[in-house]
């Protein structure tokens, strides 16, 4: 270092100090608040949780090293696998229809002949702005176990089916919670898609109309391929969101949330370990397993969506 510095002209060194260093320091200061807060409430807990995953700790007594024991406990627990299964099933039922319906809704909202566009756009986005707890509470009333709940009334009177105990049966619970997730998030994805659709240049459609393509062909061959980045984004965020499903089932099930297994998700399993069983070690181990699962799903998703985009383009040619 010294030898290099000696070769440099003196005035350059000074300039570097007075201006670039000044910029550098103020730059660091500007971004510092984020990094400090992130370190305190993001990075430190994450690292500590990684450390905890190998310890046995009840929150008050001293920790003891447990090696991979926590992972073994979690991975051999049938309830953990049940929670993985529940999460995936509710994720598929709650988010996959969301993306398809969202795309269709966005396409409809963008139609030239539609009246009261802003009204529909706002209404579709409203559920997303509603408080989660309020939504879950209202859904738990609509879908209560009682025979006279609205959902059971519809089932029995309109379709002539048997009433379902929505908060205590294997599929009833999952359907009710998936519906709630769908209802709440479909508007959010619709708005993202709408922004995507509006960014597609109009000339493409004009050219297609001249070539004699109908509306459906335009949707299939122009809109969807051009929307690829937006689809990737929503699929990505929805997958991660679905994997972390927690508040909806917890509020929906109320007191039963951590004692029944029909709708226990991975994050609920984690929460139960930490705050019901006072076992922070296994909870942290679950968190790390969840990280691996989410990464895995994200990669698979990305591959799938990318493959799907490429194929579309091939067809277009």
């Amino acid at each position: 270092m010294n030898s290099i510095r000696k070769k440099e002209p003196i005035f350059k060194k000074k300039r570097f100090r007075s201006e670039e260093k000044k910029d550098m320091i103020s730059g660091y200061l500007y971004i510092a608040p984020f990094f400090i807060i992130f370190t305190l409430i993001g990075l430190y807990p994450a690292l500590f949780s990684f450390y905890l995953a190998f310890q046995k700790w009840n929150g008050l007594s001293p920790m003891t090293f447990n090696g991979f024991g926590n992972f073994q406990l979690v991975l051999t627990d049938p309830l953990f696998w049940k929670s993985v299964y529940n999460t995936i099933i509710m994720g598929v039922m709650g988010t996959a229809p969301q993306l398809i319906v969202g795309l269709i809704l966005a396409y409809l909202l963008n139609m030239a002949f539609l009246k009261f566009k802003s009204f529909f756009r706002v209404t579709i986005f409203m559920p997303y702005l509603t408080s989660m707890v309020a939504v879950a509470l209202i859904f738990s009333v609509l879908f209560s176990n009682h025979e006279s709940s609205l959902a059971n009334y519809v089932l029995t009177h309109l379709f002539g089916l048997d009433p379902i105990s929505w908060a205590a049966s294997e599929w009833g619970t999952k359907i009710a919670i998936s519906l709630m997730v769908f209802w709440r998030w479909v508007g959010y994805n619709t708005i993202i898609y709408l922004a995507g659709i509006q960014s597609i240049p109009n000339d493409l459609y004009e050219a297609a109309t001249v070539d004699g393509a109908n509306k459906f062909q335009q949707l299939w061959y122009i809109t969807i391929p051009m929307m690829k980045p937006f689809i990737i984004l929503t699929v990505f965020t929805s997958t991660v969101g679905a994997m972390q499903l927690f508040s909806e089932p917890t509020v929906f099930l109320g007191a039963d949330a951590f004692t029944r297994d029909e709708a226990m998700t991975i994050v609920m399993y984690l929460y139960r370990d930490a705050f019901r069983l006072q076992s922070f070690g296994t909870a942290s181990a679950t968190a790390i397993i969840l990280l691996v699962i989410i990464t895995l799903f994200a990669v698979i998703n990305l591959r799938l969506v990318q493959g799907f985009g490429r194929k579309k383009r091939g067809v277009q040619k």
Partner: protein
Amino acid sequence: MKGIRKIAVLGLATLLAFLLAACSGSDDGDTNDASGEKGEITLDFWTFGATGYEELAKEYEKENPNIKIKVKSSETADHHDALFTSLSAGSGAPDIAMLEIDQFDRFKVAQDRFENLYNLGANDVKDQYLEWKWQSGENVDGDFLFGLPTDIGPKALYYRTDLFEQAGLPTDPEEVAALIDSPEAFEEVGLQVTEETGMPFVDSIEMAFRAYLDAAETAYLTPENELNLGGDSEVKKAYDYAVHLNDLGLVGKYEMWSPEWANAVNKGEFAAELGAGWLKGWMEGNAPEAVGKWNVATLPTEFAANWGGSYIAVPSETEYAQEAYDFIEWLVSSENQLKSFQSHGLFPSAQAVYEEEAFKTNEDEFFGGQATAPVFAEAAQDITGIGYKGEKYFPVHNEILNALKNVQNKGADPEKEWDAAVKRAEDLMKR
């Protein structure tokens, strides 16, 4: 140059201040530093539920002008979680904290985080309280006292007089207590009520299960923290009894606190509830149609048990352990327990209160003028001991309860469900 350095130093100082503020934020609540008036001591007191301790604290402040007490009352679960977190973090705990008996054991593992009240003079008041209540405020060895007793929840038999009458049974509390003097008699009366009225006898399988469970000397866990779920364990006996009552058709499906249950209490859709003293307060407020229709009798001694109640402890973070102790000793003295009983229905754990005229003759309009307090007092004195609960009492309880619910609702095989629940309980214990 100097300007830049100044800015940099200033900036770093601001950041540092921010950091320190963020780290010590939880301490702001503690005003122990007594920066205010000279010699004035502020004690933070965390409570939960409706205790009326705020008013008593004001009274104490008047008698002791140098003490200020800041009472913070929260919801039961929030209170214990906040206390757990602050004790775990080692900062932010109050000077005085109330502890519910069911939550108590998860705090007992951290003996070093509490003051031993025996060192502060608790030995002198020991005799004033029910022995079993006092004992479960101690550690297993009995040489460390976590908290002073506040209220208790002696269980008694709440029964519908209209259904009993319809079944051709006596309705007078003394006669009912004499009639139901054993678990077998409980079952026989149940059969008669269900046959004559068509209503279930007890509200839920949980209450049928808790009949024996709450009275067990050793419930799920031994003091060595090992599971105690063998074939001849007390829990299995309670389980079998609940299954048996269910087979006889005596058990309803009204889960406690559910709207359906509340409705059933109101309308008399089941005949008996094995409830603690505090259930009375709930009924008075929430079952307006049932005025005069419920009465209270003592349970057979096999079922005599406690359900609920609290302690007041002094976390060792406090700087004023002695002052804190003096306040709680005053707060749970028999005179003040009588006040808490009269204003908020906290059932006293100090025996002297049971002899007070104001206590004995406290008639309850809701129970058709029956003076129920002596019934609960008798029930409290019937209790021989509280079983050790242990840190994982509730998770294990929930597993067994799930098994019972599967038996009742899905017609599952009780033995298979039992084995599966025991297996899950064993998994829990490894954590």
